[in-house]
């Protein structure tokens, strides 16, 4: 055995009550402060009663649930949560990679509006010739759409078009493929680097 064992056996006595100094009594905090305790300490709340109360709450909670997946409590809980927080906003979620992730909305919008197809971000599935720049192909409709915009809204449109140009420039500048396929939550390691 190691040295400590020998030292330990030399100790006179492992006597906690003996070593314990009354002055240190305040040190030990917790849900029951033993300093304030005397021999006739008040009754402690019976845990089994507390448990029964807890069960009752559970039952009344569960009664409000639509019964589903009785074998799967977690799901049921999730469902109740869902109901309770009805009006909560949707959360960003989904580890799924969808084509939407790769979509560049500014360029897409600009192309549709002004037809300067520097970049066609989506494959149009429509059999009709729908990828026509509105301003040039259908000036009347363009006019009709834009005439109701107030100056602030026009500014936003302009800013989106500018943003499309900026992103396009940036992409050309950094055309060296440095793509990483980040997937922040799923894997603990930077495992998804290509």
């Amino acid at each position, binding site marked *: 055995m190691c040295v400590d*064992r020998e030292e330990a056996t030399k100790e006179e006595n492992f006597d906690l009550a003996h070593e314990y100094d009354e002055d240190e009594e305040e040190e030990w905090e917790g849900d029951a402060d033993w300093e304030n305790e005397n021999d006739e300490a008040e009754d402690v709340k019976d845990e089994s009663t507390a448990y029964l109360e807890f069960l009752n709450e559970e039952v009344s909670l569960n009664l409000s649930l639509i019964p589903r*997946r009785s074998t799967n409590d977690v799901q049921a809980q999730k469902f109740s949560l869902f109901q309770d927080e009805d009006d909560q906003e*949707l959360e960003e979620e989904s580890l*799924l990679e969808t084509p*939407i992730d790769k*979509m560049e*909305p500014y360029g897409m919008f600009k192309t549709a509006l002004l037809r300067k197809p520097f970049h066609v971000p989506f494959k149009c599935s429509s059999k009709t010739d*729908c990828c026509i720049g*509105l301003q040039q192909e259908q000036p009347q409709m363009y006019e009709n759409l834009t005439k109701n915009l107030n100056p602030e*809204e026009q500014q936003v449109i302009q800013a989106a078009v500018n943003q499309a140009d900026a992103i396009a420039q940036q992409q050309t500048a950094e055309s060296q493929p440095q793509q990483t396929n980040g997937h922040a939550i799923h894997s603990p390691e930077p495992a998804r680097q290509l």
Partner: protein
Amino acid sequence: METLISHMLFPILCQSDEDLELFQDDPAEYLHRKLNFYEEVSAPDIAATNFLNTLTKSRRKQTFIVLQFVNNIVNKYESAPDEQKDPREKEGALRMIGTLAPVILGKKSPIADQVELFFVRHVFPEFRSPHGFLRARACDTLEKFERLDFKDPQNLVVIYRNILDSMADPELPVRVEAALALQPLIRHEVIRSAMQQNIPVIMQQLLKLANEVDVDALANVMEDFVEVFAQELTPFAVALCEQLRDTYLRIVKDLLERNQQKDEEGLYGDFLDDKSITALGVLQTIGTLILTLESTPDVLLHLETILTPLITITLENKLYDLYNEVFEIIDSCTFAAKSISPTMWHAFELIHRTFKAGAELYLEDMLPALENFVNYGADTLVQNSAYLEAVVDMVRVIFKDDKVGGVDRICGCKLAEIVMLSLRGHIDAYVPELVQLAMVHLTSEEVKVKSYKIYLMEMVINAIYYNPVLALHVLESNNWTNKFFSLWFSNMDSFTRVHDKKLAIAAITSLLTLRAQDVPVSVQQGWPRLLQGIVRLFQTLPAAMKSKDYFPNYLQS
């Protein structure tokens, strides 16, 4: 109190003759009895430990009386000549102090720093005790004091050596208790780095134990180690996975056999018992192992084949409690591979069959895997109309089935969405049906939570993005166009996520490119609102992208 302790609690806590007999003759039952204490609240020894717990938590002072008693016993044991030592008393005393561990190590406990000494003097020697039940108790005591921070690193070295020896002990309960004690010890750097060398052997021992006795906690230990020692275990991943699968298959076969017996006896038994929980633990371990292997898709491809029997047996026998983990495994494999192997397409067939055979309510658990099948298997789906039909069929069923709730319907919306996004131009035939499903529910009287409404709208928005002319045609021929656009644009601010906004921008953009004659009369007047809507989206998109909840799945440029 002293009398109560010495004459009632302590004798109850000590091993009875039956206990010791069990230890020898039926160690598995002994372990079951000792470890699954929560099932035995009425057993006298459990009642005694509960009493000690409550007593010392509520009346801290009493702790000293108990400890005084424990000290007397262990000191007596220490000083007695070997032939006069009473191992049962010592074991009972260690059990007693172990019960008090949370209090003794509690915040600002004045005695916490004396525990290490106690271990050195009174616990360490018992790792070498001639009595198996005392060796097991030494391991257990260590586990009970898992929060103890040893000051002398040398002590941790001693512990580690002894735990490794105990894991090879001739007595099963000692091996199990040692394994359980090892788990929390990995938080100590000394032990963790020492284990890096031994982890393959340790995993072998754990697997062997898991096959000797159904103790679900062992699966937790394995899962923990697989995660912490991922790097060290990667070279052994395939073999490890095979063994885990075999363990799983063995447990499941036991389960099925027993369920069959129950059926024959007319008993209805659909509860989570030890075996199901252990099986679940093994599945979770496999799932964790797979997650650590995401950067090595070639290994995972191999694992897919290894795991096929596991997936098959679970789904074919309708082991509902184990579905979620099985679907997670399929999700992880397909996600890491970014493509769908023939093995996994076979799994897809199984999933669909399972779904049709009464597992509609598990769509939520299946969804991540299904989304991968559509997303990464788009080419196959385009070629294989039966597979495509199967996917759409699941959406159809979930919307038609009256017993499902909003959560499941949302899953249907998500599945429809990924189909429309991934199979652009290939599912014209299905789009009208998807729009109809969404609109019928959107316009129905049923009370819907907000998120469900948004997902229903997004199903239609997806259809518009997929093909605006086709989508508008469906809306128009059902007199839904105006209704839908009013709903959509009056709820524009509810589309809060980046995904929602980008999708809406894409859909509006595709509408903007329509020729005038393709715009239905019913919405022509409101058409300029399209630009106002997109303005709102562009105004709010940057903030959504900056939101802390948004993790882009790709990093552009």
